[in-house]
């Protein structure tokens, strides 16, 4: 995984609560056996007026002009601003794959669903949780100033807007380290292989029925 770098990006506002992973990437696109290529189908049912199918060329599909990502001012957005319980529902990692493939590096929300939140960190996406007051204020700024952008500095855990005003966000250290260092988690766990083997041997003695099938 690539290391997460400080960046400045345009913010797209998606003012809706409980956005589920079926909305983020509808099920027909889950038939892919690859990790990439989901970007054109991100929010497919909201973004296009027709029914999307895997393998389709999306460049000629009729766009829903009312959908926020289809508006010119948000076309280059790399930060998604939204409400509570973002990413609820299915555990599909295709949701963060689609967001990342589209170009989103950071999602700012009042809260996230657990599995989705966890999946973001495996894919270089930084989910930031802010309280309702700050979220509403960001919505206001985003909607009133075309091109409104934020600088995301993970190391300092800060969001800086063009006026220089800074918002600090909370994040657990292990999650921050994982993104900043682009860690290979499997490699990290395998560095404890000997500890796992010892655990497993003792565990098998204690619960032998778990090792019969």
């Amino acid at each position, binding site marked *: 995984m690539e290391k997460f770098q400080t960046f400045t990006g345009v913010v797209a506002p998606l003012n809706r609560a409980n956005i589920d992973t079926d909305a983020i990437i509808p099920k027909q696109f*889950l038939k892919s056996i690859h990790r990439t290529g989901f970007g054109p189908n991100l929010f497919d049912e909201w973004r296009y007026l027709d029914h999307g199918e895997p393998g389709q060329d999306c460049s000629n599909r009729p766009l829903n002009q009312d959908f926020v990502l289809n508006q010119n001012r948000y076309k280059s957005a790399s930060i998604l601003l939204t409400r509570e319980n973002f990413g609820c*529902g299915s555990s599909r990692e295709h949701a963060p794959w689609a967001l990342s493939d589209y170009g989103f590096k950071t999602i700012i929300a009042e809260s996230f669903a657990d599995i989705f939140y966890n999946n973001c960190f495996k894919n270089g996406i930084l989910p930031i949780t802010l309280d309702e007051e700050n979220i509403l204020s960001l919505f206001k700024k985003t909607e009133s100033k075309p091109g409104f952008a934020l600088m995301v500095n993970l190391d300092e855990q800060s969001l800086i807007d063009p006026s220089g005003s800074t918002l600090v966000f909370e994040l657990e250290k292990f999650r921050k380290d994982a993104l900043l260092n682009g860690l290979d988690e499997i490699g990290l766990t395998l560095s404890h292989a000997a500890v796992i083997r010892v655990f497993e041997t003792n565990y098998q003695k204690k619960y032998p029925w778990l090792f019969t099938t």
Partner: protein
Amino acid sequence: MSGKTLFDKLWKSHLVRENGDGTSLLYIDRQLIHEVTSPQAFDGMRLTNRSLWRTEANVAVPDHNIPTKDRDKGIEDPISKLQVDTLDKNCDSFQIKEFKMSDPNQGIVHVIGPEQGLTLPGMAIVCGDSHTSTHGALGALAFGIGTSEVEHVLATQCLIQQKSKNMLIKVDGKLKQGITAKDLILFIIGKIGTAGGTGYAIEFGGNAIKALSMEGRMTVCNMTIEAGARAGLIAVDQTTLDYVNGKPFSPKGELWEKAREYWKTLQSDEDAAFDKTIEINANDINPMVTWGTSPELVVDVEGEIPFSANRKFQPALDYMGLEMGVPIKDILLDKIFIGSCTNSRIEDLREAAKVVEGKKIADSIKLAMVVPGSGPVKDQAEKEGLDKIFLNAGFEWREPGCSMCLAMNADRLESGERCASTSNRNFEGRQGQGGRTHLVSPAMAAAAAIKGYFVNVTTNWNN
């Protein structure tokens, strides 16, 4: 010092090491695998040239893309077929036990795990599927993971996890005649909301939970994720032990005795401290029907779509083609789906069959289908003659799979169609683009098929 919760105990028994940064390395006993969330994990294994840590800890089954009729013709959609073929190939090359599409024991991953005795009390169970919470009904720690974590478990038999907080939902009293586990969990979700359990492992306790069958307990734990919690748990008791006993892969003989002694300890201590406790009175619950595009948008069948001052529900109402104040019983339906990992077990089918026996589905219903959760469920139902009851009433009787719960196969709603469904999610587009889903119990779905609209199954509804 206060006692330990069931979740604390399960966490501790699987704790390999604490990493010193708030995370722990947790040992995983069983990984269930299906075709949708695993291909990229196997690719990762090949790319990094890693081998499986413990092959036999993994069990696979295709379920999401599987056709529910004319199965001998194979999978028509080439993309679905490739995904299922890829699972077969991956399982063959990594030598993972798989119940292939043609296997008589094939079925929905969360139905076959407990049914085969492949998921057992006390285990830590994962699957790249959020409804893995189902298996917590057996007193196991079970939760859904993403594909990166699927790969992590394949390679290391462990996961890096942060411990959840403990919540107890205590359901006392007695469910009224005709009220099911599905109504109970929908009621709970309506009460705490779809994010109410975020960050928690939820243990369900109290008399009304103890009185549930294993099927009912699985329905409750299955939809724990719809309340925001990754894991739902129910303490082991005699009902659990009776269920597990004699399953194909359950321990036998001396090992059974040993396991049983341990499993009996899988309960929260009397003095266990929970971070949050919610008390529910089972006597209060009526048949529940969702009316919106989130499972928390749910009311009693005798109720109406609620009013909200700030038009908060407008997007959901627009999508559902409904208005505030509409009585639930006035909602007309097009299709009926009885199935999914929530409600496709034998008890669910019996409840639905009892309702439809000797009756016919309404003329206005375009399609009513029953999709059993597994081959063995289907066989059992046929032995009991339930298939005939459904077929005579005008239902279609299908082959096992996820089917119209998420419409990855050919079973789906057309735009604007309205469905009474025993599945778990009423999200926009979930059962087909533009499709409108109302989540209900099997008995409620069955009665709705007969009438063409929702009725209260606990009343004399067919007069």
